[in-house]
């Protein structure tokens, strides 16, 4: 299942080169510092609610660090931090089955076959939240309030990312605007390909431990190509067949096991905060 990518490397289709952007997150390196979450919020104009910054249910995170535990008692206790962006599920077969895309009644989200990125169009979304129910990774978040920033902070908003209004769903876009920016540069230099270092997500660059690697999963020259094939690589809830493009690696067997649903043992020893 891990090597289910049959598409050729960067082949031409229509106008542009076809990419399949994805991530490999090394959980052995992740310290749970949360720099990726902060970088993501700053990059993507994610509003924060001053009055309840500790209420994780009402905070909108595109990138969220979970803490999982093996549930053992000392000295066998072990914890692991698990950063979770959008998985940008590809699904299988010709009619791809990205869970959120198939349920959206407004066509406010789609799967881009040229980049492998699942979009979210805020002006089209009317907030029914079917996609939130469909997403097995709890990636999508709902704007219960109009965005508000402390005075003066509006000046620091990213002009490349459109702020969302109350009543719409939002989610991680793999910093798609950075790809647009990189493409702009490539076009001005008369080339269509975007180099690996030209397009990196904010969380990837912010991670002080270097736990996140980002790139084109189908391009052998990109680091993620080899990393996703390592024996310790796995994906979350692979059993559902969502075919996510975010891979994790961990040398610990219980972490790899916790990533999937095992009937009978469901939820055992896995907690998240």
């Amino acid at each position, binding site marked *: 299942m891990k090597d289910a990518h049959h598409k050729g490397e960067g082949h031409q289709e229509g*106008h542009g080169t076809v990419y399949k952007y994805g991530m490999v997150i090394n959980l052995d390196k992740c310290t749970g510092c949360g720099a990726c979450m902060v970088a993501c919020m700053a990059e993507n104009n994610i509003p924060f609610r001053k009055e309840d910054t500790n209420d994780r249910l009402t905070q909108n995170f595109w990138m969220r660090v979970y803490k999982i535990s093996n549930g053992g008692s000392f000295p066998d206790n072990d914890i692991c931090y698990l950063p979770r962006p959008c998985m940008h599920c590809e699904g299988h077969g010709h009619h791809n089955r990205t869970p959120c895309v198939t349920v959206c009644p407004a066509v406010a989200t789609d799967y881009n076959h040229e980049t492998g990125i699942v*979009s979210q169009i805020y002006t089209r979304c009317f907030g029914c939240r079917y996609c939130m129910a469909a997403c097995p990774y709890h990636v999508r978040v709902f704007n219960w309030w109009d965005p508000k920033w402390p005075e003066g902070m509006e000046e620091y908003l990213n002009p490349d990312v459109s702020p969302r209004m109350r009543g719409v769903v939002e989610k991680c876009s793999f910093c798609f605007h950075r790809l647009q*920016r990189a493409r702009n540069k490539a076009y001005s230099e008369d080339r269509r390909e975007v180099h690996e270092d030209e397009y990196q997500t904010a969380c990837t660059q912010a991670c002080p431990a270097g736990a996140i690697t980002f790139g084109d999963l189908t391009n052998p020259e990109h680091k993620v190509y080899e990393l996703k094939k390592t024996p310790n690589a796995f994906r979350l809830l692979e059993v559902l067949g969502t075919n996510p493009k975010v891979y994790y690696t961990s040398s610990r067997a219980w972490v790899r096991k916790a990533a999937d649903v095992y009937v009978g043992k469901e939820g055992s020893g896995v907690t998240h905060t």
Partner: protein
Amino acid sequence: MSTSEEKERNVAGGEQRTEGSSWRFLVPVIAFFAGFLVFLCIGWGIFPKILYSEKQQPIDFNHQLHVDEMGDCEACHYFREDGSFSGIPKSENCIECHESAMGEHPEEAKLIDQYIEPGKEIPWLSYARQPDCVFFSHAAHVRMAGLDCMTCHGPIGESEHTRPYQYNRLTKYSRDIWGWNIAGIKTNTWDRMKMDDCAECHEENGTNQACFVCHK
């Protein structure tokens, strides 16, 4: 004689009676068309005037004069090194030529007195400004697809005066996005800048139709 007169009177009377009843039948028809006309005038004449507000540009800019002097559009509307498009020039671009007056035109005097000497930016109103959710890459269209500026912006390079800037009072979007024809009829490619118009060309040229191509 009298009988024929009576007959004529009767005929006339009969005609009068029939005329009167057909007139009564016409009243609602005429009322309908009168009302239709009134609402047509409101809908096509008065409503657009209410819907759009009008502003004048800070300076009456002569595009033709500048194109003749500078050569082409990219002399002022240039690409930056990172591939982004500069759009409307900043006053620092104007200073390159207009540090002091080059002629005696009152609009140039206005430029120097009000903006260049105090070091202020000219608050130009952008006709082609798209809503915030739209991503548009000039590099992709001009450099890669080889489109002419005219295709979207029209013959603005031939204008001698700036036209008034109209914007929708509700959305605050420039009228150029919807188009100047209130019925939305377009005869030239630059008449409208709605999503349908982008999609039309993208479809013709086989561009990827995914949302994230143009949205952000």
